[in-house]
């Protein structure tokens, strides 16, 4: 939807801060149930981002699948584990943690400098020629339907086979 300017900016800042805090919460909280809830917050904020960019179908699909299925699955797995053994040997300042945080910060800085240096509007304008004509008049679910039925038909079939095999395999592993 085309929101007015200040609401758009406010929502962007709100979701961005939710993402930042949720991401830190997944990694840094000791209790795994709290970190699973922080993962749920991150997934909700990501799917609300897709609403801001007019992709309503992808937003709803991510909300249903990620928050509704994958996050609930992870919560079930967390609740089966005995989490009292992690409070004893929790040491956040080991050498390995410090080295990894250095490496990850350098990865983040290099990625951000690459993103801010690229001129994105030039790239988007040159690749706009091979998209569907009248793209703004069709809804997002119709665009995805057109793509799935014409260009991406073979990956669609393969994805369904992959999902079938993965679910049968997961059930077989847990039944033993």
């Amino acid at each position, binding site marked *: 939807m085309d929101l007015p300017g200040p609401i758009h900016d406010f929502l962007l800042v709100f979701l961005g801060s939710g993402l930042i805090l949720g991401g830190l919460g997944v990694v840094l909280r000791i209790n795994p149930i709290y970190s699973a809830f922080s993962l749920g917050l991150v997934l909700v904020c990501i799917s609300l981002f897709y609403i801001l960019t007019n992709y309503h179908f992808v937003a709803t699909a991510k909300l249903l699948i*990620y928050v509704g299925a994958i996050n609930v699955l*992870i919560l079930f*797995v967390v609740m089966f584990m005995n989490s009292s053994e992690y409070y004893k040997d929790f040491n956040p300042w080991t050498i*390995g943690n410090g080295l990894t945080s250095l490496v990850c910060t350098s990865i*983040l800085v290099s990625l951000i400098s690459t*993103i801010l240096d690229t001129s*994105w509007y030039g790239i988007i304008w040159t690749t706009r020629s091979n998209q569907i004509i009248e793209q703004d008049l069709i809804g997002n679910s119709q665009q995805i339907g057109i793509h799935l039925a014409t260009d991406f038909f073979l990956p669609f079939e393969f994805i369904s086979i992959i999902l079938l095999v993965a679910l049968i395999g*997961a059930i077989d592993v847990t039944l033993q």
Partner: protein
Amino acid sequence: MMLEHILVLSAYLFSIGIYGLITSRNMVRALMCLELILNAVNINFLKGNIFSIFVIAIAAAEASIGSAIVSSIYRNRKSTRINQSTLLNK
């Protein structure tokens, strides 16, 4: 303006996910950080909306198989520490 903000946020989530994946001693936390990484890559595909659907499907399949493996490991060894598999060490 908005495209760059979302890409910067996706880079942040990616690096946080890599940090959490490497420094987690719990298998379930490693699975959660893997989901973070996959979501960070997925939010990069802003203008390619079909590929996001495929990444969602692959992430769902991988999360289900990962949690099945973690459940069977927990059932066998009663503990989910990552550094307990040392049979190949010698």
